[in-house]
């Protein structure tokens, strides 16, 4: 099943992983070390982040490095700014409706 980006970033460990690899691509082993976690626990988080395309693996020799994928986060930001615009438009419409009702009452 495809992971949801909201679910992915709701977890504090996953946010920490994202913050770290946004600076520098890391292998799962290094991540496990940095967060003092088992390799298994790290793999679970990587799976979630990878499935919602927040990170992408790049093979380098025998190691896999995970890179941050800013595009996915931008999608979320783009969506939010559009959502904001829709709310703004609706409220401006409500301003007009309210002023019309107020005039009718007078």
């Amino acid at each position, binding site marked *: 099943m*495809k992971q*949801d*980006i*909201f*679910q992915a*970033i*709701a977890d*504090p460990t996953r*946010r920490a992983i994202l913050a770290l690899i946004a600076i520098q691509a890391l292998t799962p082993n290094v991540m496990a070390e940095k967060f003092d976690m088992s390799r298994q626990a790290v793999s679970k988080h990587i799976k979630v982040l990878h499935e919602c395309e927040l990170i992408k693996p790049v093979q380098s020799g025998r190691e896999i490095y995970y890179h941050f994928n800013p595009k996915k986060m931008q999608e*979320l930001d783009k*969506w*939010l700014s*559009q*959502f*904001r615009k*829709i*709310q*703004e*438009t*609706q*409220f401006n*419409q*409500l*301003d*007009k*409706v*309210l*002023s019309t*009702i*107020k005039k009718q009452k007078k």
Partner: protein
Amino acid sequence: MKNDLLFDFTVDKAAKTVFITREFDAELSLVWDAFTKQEILDQWTAPAPWTAKTKYMNFEVGGKRFYAMVGPDGQESWIVQEYTSITPKTNFKMLNAFADKDENRQLPGSEWEYNFSEQNGVTKVKITIFNESFDRMEKLLEGFQQGFSMTLEKLENLLTNLTQK
């Protein structure tokens, strides 16, 4: 109309929550009606050129508003809002979910909470929107984007026609 009315929009991505605060230049009872009465809701709850059309609405705990946002070319996007808590002229909560025209909901939806307060004739509405799923939320815009781009296309055509004359 006053132009210094507050509009605040903040997002806590980690908490999957959007916070909106907006002031309206009207007394609380009127603003409350505008958010809770079908005939007023239908006048503003779809961004133009879309229009809102309520099929039925029972504003009571456990009651629902079932409405469509109708696009400029007649396309319909149905939404079910179920009221889970109401404190008259103070607060209400609802579950918002997209649906098909037969009212089959796509769950999970989002949880909306509204808080109303008045000061010096200006009413402040605080809205908290919690979304379990981003993909679900994203669907809301897909419909709009189609509608918007179609409208833009029409405008372009119109402009082209005008400049040719």
